[in-house]
């Protein structure tokens, strides 16, 4: 069935079809319509879930942690400052190895108060042990949420997963989305089997004091789970492709085979970059695009191109573009551009211009300061 709707409503629909038992969420622009729609599903009896209304995002994540610890599937959604308020609990969910699935609608951080797209909110959570997926279309939002449950709940992974997409550019924009039947989703995504649960019949303490050596083992196990996730993400993406006709991996490569320069970016910018690649190709430029679908785990093994142009809709002040710096550590010829912060429009024409500037050996803040 084709559904034409905004990414937020599509996210709510995907969450509903994954059948979470508990949803705890706090509304924040531009995520609000996800929470409203889910509350509506529960109120109408279309989704048999406990909807916990909480006083903050910190509580929302804490409630999801408590619920997931009893062995049930959970969902929440947030954005920007809401995500930052969760930060402590994000680490907790990761170290507790609870496969909570959350949507983060990317929005800039204040001050100055700004509700438009910017990836700094979710990228700032990179070390919390959450898998991070970035979507470039409403279809990917739907597909990523369904797959995220299957990946996060895999016994070799058992890590929480964050599905990120741009505020307004996706969240409030309607696009056609192919939605499988509930039966097909159920066949793809069986009920959650937890690795540990809180059970009053067999009491355990979770989050007890842990001496240094076992603590390091816990961290190592978590890092290994992220490494395992690379394989699982590809396997699940392939199975999804077989069943639904849209295959997924850690990255999406477009016209990269013979490319002189490969543009590396993610989220909505990647959709725009795809158009730019076609335009550049029609002008005789050998351009390619490598879209990062996952930021954690980071797909280093695919960033093998000699010349790459990285466009970051984020900034680590005092270092530079976050994605750029993770890639540059690999020692390749990489040109970094900061663009589109706080929702500044970056069209395919801007990306063509960025390509030309990189060919001249330039990089920097586009268009503020490029040299």
């Amino acid at each position, binding site marked *: 069935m084709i559904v034409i709707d905004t990414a937020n409503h599509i996210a709510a629909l995907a969450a509903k079809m994954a059948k979470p038992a508990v949803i705890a969420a706090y509304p924040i622009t531009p995520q609000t319509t996800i929470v409203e729609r889910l509350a509506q599903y529960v109120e109408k009896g279309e989704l048999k879930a406990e909807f916990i209304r909480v006083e903050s995002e910190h509580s929302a994540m804490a409630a999801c942690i408590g619920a997931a610890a009893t062995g049930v599937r959970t969902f929440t959604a947030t954005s920007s400052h809401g995500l930052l308020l969760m930060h402590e609990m994000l680490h907790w969910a990761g*170290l*507790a*190895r609870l496969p909570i699935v959350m949507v983060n609608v990317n929005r800039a951080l204040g001050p100055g108060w700004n509700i438009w797209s910017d990836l700094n909110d979710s990228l700032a959570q990179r070390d919390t042990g959450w898998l991070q997926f970035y979507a470039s279309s409403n279809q990917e939002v739907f597909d990523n949420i369904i797959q995220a449950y299957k990946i996060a709940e895999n*016994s*070799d992974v*058992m890590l929480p997963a964050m599905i990120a997409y741009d505020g307004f550019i996706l969240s409030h924009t309607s696009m056609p989305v192919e939605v499988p039947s509930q039966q097909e989703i159920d066949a793809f995504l069986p009920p959650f089997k937890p*690795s*540990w649960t809180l059970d009053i019949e067999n*009491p*355990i*303490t*979770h*989050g*007890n*004091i*842990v001496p240094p050596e*076992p603590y390091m*083992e*816990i961290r*190592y*196990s*978590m890092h290994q*789970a992220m490494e395992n996730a690379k394989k699982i993400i590809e396997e699940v993406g392939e199975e999804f492709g077989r069943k639904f006709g849209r295959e997924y991996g850690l990255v999406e490569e477009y016209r990269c085979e013979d490319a002189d320069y490969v543009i590396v970016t993610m989220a909505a910018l990647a959709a725009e970059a795809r158009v730019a690649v076609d335009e550049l190709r029609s002008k005789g430029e050998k351009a390619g695009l490598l879209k990062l679908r996952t930021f954690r785990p980071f797909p280093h093994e695919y960033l093998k191109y000699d010349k790459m142009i990285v466009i970051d809709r984020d900034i680590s002040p005092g270092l530079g573009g976050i994605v750029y710096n993770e890639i540059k550590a690999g020692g390749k010829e990489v040109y970094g551009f900061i663009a589109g912060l706080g929702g500044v429009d970056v069209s395919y024409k801007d990306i063509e211009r960025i390509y030309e500037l990189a060919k001249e050996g330039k990089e920097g803040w586009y268009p503020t300061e490029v040299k």
Partner: protein
Amino acid sequence: MNVKTAISIPTEGAMGKTGTWRVFRPVIDTSKCIKCWRCWIFCPDAAISRNEYPSIDYEYCKGCGICSNVCPVKAIEMRREEK
């Protein structure tokens, strides 16, 4: 389980003899005790058990004083440990 996370099975004395942490010792005056069992309910370390009167396990009682605080008839006195 493939997953390593912080889980412990509750056992007596999992954290060692926590009674050594104690600075003040709760002492029950059975002549005042009305057996309401509030001390038994509130003890965070389950160091009070129900016998004829509440009895305190000094091996594990940390001396937090909650029992003394919740006692409605002030039958539990907190006395400084002498060492």
